[in-house]
């Protein structure tokens, strides 16, 4: 069974149709790259999956559980939305780290807040917090920042900040981790370290959706690729095939323009 | 959270508006005396004004203060002194923050039209104050016409100078007017004779000042809220206190016996 199934998703901003009849699925442990020019709707799609936007139509199913059916207009409670959100993680283009917290605190904060809702929190407070800390250190080690635990974001390079952001997203054990152009805000010499981390996640079979402009990276790391243009999915298929032998004329044009640029 | 805040704000605002907007049925017809007796104290609005009202060992004393205490006692209520700003005395009365103004208050038209006043009980005059070393040149009002005067805003002295058409500036109180003269920022001041007697000349901080010409003669009275029945009650009290000599005795204590008016 697919880990994620999106079907017939639509989204309008005013009169502009940003997403038109978007359907795709993603298997557990696979990674999906979404490519396309800016304004093609790929970021809106990602934000919809993370409940930062509300689609006008369509459904989202994760692991067999229907998370969202836009046709059902009953307003979900904040608590339900929060719970559903946690199925997904999101890494932003601009990192959006919390500037007043250290790298480790950034990673631990959400877990600490969630732990307070556990019934046994008062009883086992010390152990729970210790576990969260251990996990935080482990995650930062995993992204290669074990000696940067107590640094504040402004003391870190862009690449390091983005790696903290990845660790922070991983801390809540999302089923699906989403990346919104994770290297677009970075200087070229810093993109490598971030891509390396994402690649290692793919090797560990993390289910991921990556919106990216790095075509070579998408080809090498992703299992599937979706090419979006004007709010529709123009082409989807195995990564290598979409990049190297695109079927659609629009995909070909996009890729050649891209290769011409880089 | 947001709804809660909105609700809280709404409640606070409505409460505020009703507090301000709701006007209790007019109590103008009610007896002011009954109101004072009911709350058990007479709140007397004063300023620091020797020898009428001033502090000694933390207690308010003076001719006015002592008479006010005696009057309150005759009503069977406590007497409480509250210092006020002289230029907002009418507002203090109207808003019931005080019940009377008993502080060597000159009975001007302005005062008698905004308050219910007692009979006059003390004579006073407005006098010109100048530095002692030039007092010889300014013995009468006419010789002072080119001077700049400092007067208390809203005082009888201000009215007197304005009447003469002299140049003047209004300051917060009579003490400030003296300070103006002393520091040379004004040439002369016009203040109450009774106050001048206590505050300038040898043995005071203003030994270099002296008073010369009297501009206007005037009388002191006590002011109550408009329409108050306490004014009549005070007149009766004054008459009795004058008759039995206690008022004169009190005046003598504070050196104002010559100014006392027969009741």
């Amino acid at each position, binding site marked *: 069974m697919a880990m994620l199934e999106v079907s017939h998703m639509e989204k309008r901003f005013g009169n502009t149709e940003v997403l038109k009849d978007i359907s795709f699925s993603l298997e557990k442990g696979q990674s999906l790259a979404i490519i396309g020019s800016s304004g093609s709707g790929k970021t809106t799609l990602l934000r919809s999956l*993370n409940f*930062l936007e509300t689609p006008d139509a369509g459904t989202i199913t994760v692991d067999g559980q229907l998370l969202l059916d836009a046709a059902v207009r009953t307003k979900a409670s*904040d608590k339900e939305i*929060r719970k559903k*959100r946690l199925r*997904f*993680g*999101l890494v932003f283009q*601009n990192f*959006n*780290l*919390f*500037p*007043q*917290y250290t790298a480790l605190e950034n990673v631990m*904060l*959400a877990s600490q807040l969630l732990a307070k809702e556990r019934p046994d929190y008062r009883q086992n407070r010390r152990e729970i917090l210790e576990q969260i800390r251990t996990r935080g250190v482990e995650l930062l080690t995993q992204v290669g920042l074990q000696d940067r635990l107590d640094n*504040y974001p*402004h003391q870190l390079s862009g690449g390091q900040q983005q790696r903290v952001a990845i660790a*922070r*997203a991983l801390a*809540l054990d999302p089923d699906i981790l989403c990346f919104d152009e994770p290297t677009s805000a970075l200087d070229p010499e810093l993109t490598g370290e971030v891509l390396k981390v994402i690649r290692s996640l793919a090797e560990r079979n993390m289910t991921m959706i990556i919106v990216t402009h790095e075509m070579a990276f998408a080809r090498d790391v992703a299992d599937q690729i979706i090419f979006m243009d004007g709010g529709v999915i123009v082409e989807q298929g195995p990564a290598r095939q979409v990049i190297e032998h695109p079927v659609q004329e629009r995909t070909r044009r996009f890729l050649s323009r891209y290769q011409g640029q880089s | *959270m*947001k709804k809660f*805040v*909105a609700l*809280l*704000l709404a409640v606070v*605002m409505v409460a505020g508006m009703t*507090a*301000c*907007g*709701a*006007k*209790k049925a007019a*109590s103008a017809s009610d007896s002011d005396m009954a109101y004072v007796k009911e709350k058990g104290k007479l709140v007397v609005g004063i300023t*620091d*004004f020797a020898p009428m009202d*001033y*502090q000694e060992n933390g207690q308010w004393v003076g001719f006015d203060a002592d008479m006010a205490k005696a009057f309150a006692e005759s009503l069977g209520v406590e007497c409480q002194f509250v*210092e*006020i*700003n002289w230029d*907002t005395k009418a*507002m203090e009365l*109207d*808003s*019931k*923050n005080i019940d009377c103004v008993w502080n060597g208050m000159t009975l001007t038209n302005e005062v008698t039209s905004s308050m219910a006043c007692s009979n006059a009980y003390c004579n006073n005059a407005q006098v010109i104050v100048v530095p002692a070393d030039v007092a010889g040149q300014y013995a009468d009002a006419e010789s002072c016409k080119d001077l700049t005067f400092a007067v208390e805003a809203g005082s009888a002295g201000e009215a007197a100078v304005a009447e003469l058409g002299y140049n003047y500036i209004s300051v917060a*109180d*009579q*003490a*400030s007017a003296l*300070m103006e003269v*002393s*520091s040379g920022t004004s040439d002369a001041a016009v203040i109450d004779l009774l106050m001048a007697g206590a*505050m300038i000349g040898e043995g*005071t*901080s*203003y030994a270099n000042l002296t008073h010369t010409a009297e501009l206007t003669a005037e009388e002191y009275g006590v002011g109550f809220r408009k329409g108050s029945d306490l004014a009549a009650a005070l007149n009766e009290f004054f008459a009795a206190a004058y008759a039995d000599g206690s008022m004169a005795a009190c005046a003598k204590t504070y050196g104002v016996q010559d100014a006392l008016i027969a009741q």
Partner: protein
Amino acid sequence: MFQTVLNALNQGFLLTLALFLVTLAGALPLGLLVSFGSMSRFRPLRYVMRTIVWIFRGSPLLLQLFIIFYVPGELDHNIWAFSSGRFWAAATAFILNYACYFSEIYRGGIESIPRGQDEAGLVLGMTKQQIFFKVKFMQLVRRIVPPISNEIITLVKDTSLANSIALAEVIWAGKKFMKSDGLVWPLFFTILYYLAFTGLLTLFFGWLEKKLSYYSV
């Protein structure tokens, strides 16, 4: 005599200090509520709050003091007829006035925090309250300390306006000696109290700003 004056001024300054502290204790949190109101998505509330802010910022504090202290009584509803009524009337006027000033500073601060901070909190499953208090609050504090400290130092000096409704704060205490003893210097002497107090506050806010600069926003 010097001792007498000093005692009286100290007494007056205690009242100045009390008015200052009560105003801060009331206006700092109330300002936050007002700023929420003036940013509310519920339009009538937003308009009402912005009008209130305009009224209190757009008219003299002196006039607000007179209105708050005298108007209830003029309407035969004197709510200040208790022994420390003048103090609480002054405190009410100061709290309302300063809450409105603070609310605009808060609003500017809150609106200047990037939307990405909210979104990062949301995708991490935080509630709106958690996002405000755990994520944005410290960033807000950092941004508003300089403008708020300006207002607070202005407040120290503004407390002297309360002597217009005969509250016996330090300037009133100084002026009294002009009337009773013909002494002028006690009034001028009060400046030392203000300078000492604002000096301490300036040092404190300097320290606080430095303390908060361990991160940059």
